């Protein structure tokens, strides 16, 4: 064994290479500290600070605001549809906002119903939930939770928001296009979408913007998480939310480009007259199409679902991350099975790329392919179950604090459970023959996304509102918001399972009243569901008032000083930053160093009830210290 040179550092002997490493680390920390102090008081113009901001916290708030507005808009479109479904053919004065061409005399036209349906899906998924889950929560929290001064590429982050926003505007503007907006569903299946009116072209262009935004964002997140982790923050010390965002970013990065390719091809079909998705011999309104033909409508479905299935996990993983944080905090216990949750998340990410064709069992792709995708679909349910079970078991034996964020997080568990379990029959090709394209499918994915993901988003808003503003949202109105929403949302979606099992198809303009087999159940359930939808809208009023009252109060400087920097007594790093970190001034006065796992609540033998991640260990570190091994001492003395 070759002898390594040793040098004396203070009172200790160290190997030269280890001393060198330590010196480099010390210089890095000093540099970071200098940086953290260095940008204390420079002034930025209003536009740089609030419009084209490069600060991840403000961009997160921008995303959050925009996404919440889009969620409300998407919901309002659905209210109009629900009015039509509950009372088909009746005139409603509110319907007149759509204009004479869509709702003459307040009666919704079928093509307008299709437009509302397509845009409800598009807005909710691409403009509402993904930007809220990834753009808002991810942007605001990931750098704080990993102890980074900002995202790795702040300008790219700004560009990402400024691709998302125009993309949204283009989607909205498509309502004004001749013939109205896109009306081929959020899935835009050809050939209908190719021969649809001009609004579809706007939809495709809007999608290209949104895809670009997601790509920029996902590159940024992955680099930030890998490169800007605080010292000592190893992967297994990440809060679960960071893992969820990490996997989500990979899904966005790798799943969105095929949809971009598909959008380009459909754009070519619509603009340049190609026939990628148009088969030969297509006849529209009694006239043969002049296209060359030879295309394949299934190609679109493959490319679309190659994105859109991972997209489902993009919708759900950040929600699981939020719920995990809140459950650990409010049970005052570490998460049960943290490691298995992390590996389940990564496995889920991989598997989500090989299940897409379970959306296409009825397209006649063949039993072999169906069998393959049926198998992978059954396999992918396992990691979801692992995560959900771990969250349930985490509740065991905890002294649970039932505050508003925790109520939403707790509601997430059974709601996502219902959504997930009702998905299993859809993943089996035989059962799917009966259930495909019925209200059962709608019920299934809305249970995952609405009382699932959106409830998790609400939980996150209530939980991190004090971080962003220095004020807590009102608990009483929060609970009113929760209970009314919880009852109403189940009133909307649960009857859908019954409708679907009775064979009511989705996308029916009158909710099934024209079909003998569907008529009875449609008449029994649809008015009730529509009333619940209106109830759900009403339930959002206390939330909106609560939110704006406190946000405005915080903006004019009326913070709740008694709240402190860690109102929930949490352990993760975002609460180690200064009280609601000042905008555009970096996050931490001194970049934190992490010594512990993410959820050190109620640690046996410790006096403190919770120990933040950046609290140094009390006894000397067992490994990695600078102490010289005894064998080396012996050699030196010889």
């Amino acid at each position, binding site marked *: 064994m070759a002898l390594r040179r040793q040098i004396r550092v203070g009172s200790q002997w160290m190997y030269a290479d280890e001393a060198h490493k330590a010196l480099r680390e010390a210089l890095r920390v000093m540099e970071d500290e200098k*940086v953290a102090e*260095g940008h204390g008081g420079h002034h930025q113009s209003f536009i740089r600070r609030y419009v084209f901001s490069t600060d991840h916290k403000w961009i997160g708030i921008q995303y959050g605001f925009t996404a919440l507005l889009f969620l409300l808009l998407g919901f309002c479109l659905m209210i109009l549809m629900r009015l039509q479904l509950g009372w088909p053919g009746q005139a409603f004065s509110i319907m007149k906002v759509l204009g004479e061409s869509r709702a003459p005399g307040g009666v919704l036209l079928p093509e307008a119903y299709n437009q509302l349906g397509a845009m409800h899906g598009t807005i909710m998924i691409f403009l509402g939930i993904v930007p809220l889950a990834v753009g808002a929560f991810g942007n605001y929290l990931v750098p704080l939770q990993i102890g980074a001064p900002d995202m790795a*590429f702040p300008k790219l982050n700004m560009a990402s928001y400024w691709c998302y926003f125009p993309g949204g505007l283009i989607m909205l503007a498509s309502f004004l296009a001749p013939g109205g907006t896109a009306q081929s569903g959020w899935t835009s299946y050809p050939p209908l979408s190719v021969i649809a009116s001009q609004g579809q072209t706007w939809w495709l262009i809007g999608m290209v913007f949104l895809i670009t935004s997601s790509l920029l964002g996902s*590159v940024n997140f992955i680099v930030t998480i890998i490169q800007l982790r605080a010292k000592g923050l190893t992967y297994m010390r990440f809060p679960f939310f960071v893992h969820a965002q990490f996997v989500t970013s990979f899904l966005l*990065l790798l799943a969105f480009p095929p949809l971009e390719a598909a959008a380009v091809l459909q754009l070519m079909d619509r603009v340049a007259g*190609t026939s990628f998705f148009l088969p030969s011999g297509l006849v529209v309104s009694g006239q043969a199409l002049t296209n*060359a033909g030879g*295309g394949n409508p299934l*190609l679109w479905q493959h490319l679309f679902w190659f994105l859109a299935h991972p997209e489902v996990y993009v919708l759900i993983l950040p929600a699981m991350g939020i719920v995990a944080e809140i459950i650990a905090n409010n049970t005052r216990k570490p998460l049960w099975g943290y490691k298995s949750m992390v590996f389940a998340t990564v496995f889920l990410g991989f598997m989500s790329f090989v299940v897409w064709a379970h959306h296409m069992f009825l397209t006649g792709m063949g039993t072999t392919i169906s069998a393959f995708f049926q198998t992978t679909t059954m396999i992918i349910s396992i990691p979801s179950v692992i995560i959900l079970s771990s969250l349930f078991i985490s509740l065991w034996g905890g002294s649970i604090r039932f505050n508003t964020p925790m109520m939403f997080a707790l509601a997430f568990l059974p709601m996502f459970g219902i959504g997930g379990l009702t998905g299993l029959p859809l993943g089996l090709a035989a059962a799917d023959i009966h259930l495909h394209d019925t209200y059962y499918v709608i019920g299934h994915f809305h249970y995952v996304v609405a009382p699932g993901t959106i409830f998790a988003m609400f939980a996150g808003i209530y939980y991190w509102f004090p971080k962003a503003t220095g004020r807590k949202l009102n608990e009483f109105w929060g609970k009113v918001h929760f209970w009314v929403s919880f009852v109403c949302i189940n009133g909307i979606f649960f009857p859908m399972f019954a409708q679907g099992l009775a064979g009511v198809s989705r996308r029916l303009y009158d909710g099934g009243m024209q079909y003998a087999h569907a008529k009875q159940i449609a008449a029994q359930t649809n008015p009730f569901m529509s009333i619940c939808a209106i109830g759900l809208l009403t339930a959002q009023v206390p939330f909106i008032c609560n939110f704006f009252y406190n946000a405005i109060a915080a903006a004019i400087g009326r913070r709740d000083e008694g709240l402190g920097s860690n109102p929930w007594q949490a352990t993760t790093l975002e609460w180690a930053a200064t009280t609601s970190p000042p905008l555009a001034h*970096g996050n931490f006065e001194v970049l934190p160093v992490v010594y512990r796992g993410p959820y050190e609540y109620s640690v046996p033998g410790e006096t403190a009830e919770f120990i933040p991640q950046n609290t140094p260990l009390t006894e000397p570190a067992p490994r990695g210290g600078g102490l010289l091994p005894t064998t080396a001492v012996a050699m030196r003395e010889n």
Partner: protein
Amino acid sequence: MDAHASVGHAELEIPYNVHPRPDTGLYNAKLGVWLFLASEVMLFGALFSSLILLRTGADSWPRGYEFLNVKLATFNTFILILSSVTVVMAWSHLRLGNLKKGRIYISATVFCALVFLTAKGFEYAHEFRENRFPKTNNFLAIYFTMTGLHGLHILGGVIVFLYFLGPGAKMWAKEPERYTNRIEIVGLYWHFVDLVWIFLFPILYLM
């Protein structure tokens, strides 16, 4: 150690912007560009898959070599490979601290790219004169879509190179290492764009 990192910047300093993080061995943008290229692989991968699906499902499929200009495309292939060499030369000269030679090689890369685009323009014009448009058949549709998208990537690279020749080169005075990194990154992108063509050429022109 990071002598030039904190000079004259009003904005926030992000760690590992220039120097690699010890445990990952990468600086931020290098990891970023590899991720971006991964997404590009998925983009072109989807298009190649579409081509395969359309071709295997077609009753008859035109052969590119029967009417496309294979000679010109071969020439273009070599031009692009040459440009990949010049961009490496530019980077290695910058690494050695020689901005002048670095710029000469960046200019050579841009020149190659422009030659490629011009040749492609002639090819397109020829097809249009012969009444061959994207809508004529699915082979031409995918041919124009893929080569067009590839051409846009080339054009994007040219714009970035021109920026680094012009206003972007100011960075050299203060942060030569960062400037060199940027050329390395755009170089990685450039290699990828070349690689796409290496796949496009045989599939569209020869098979």
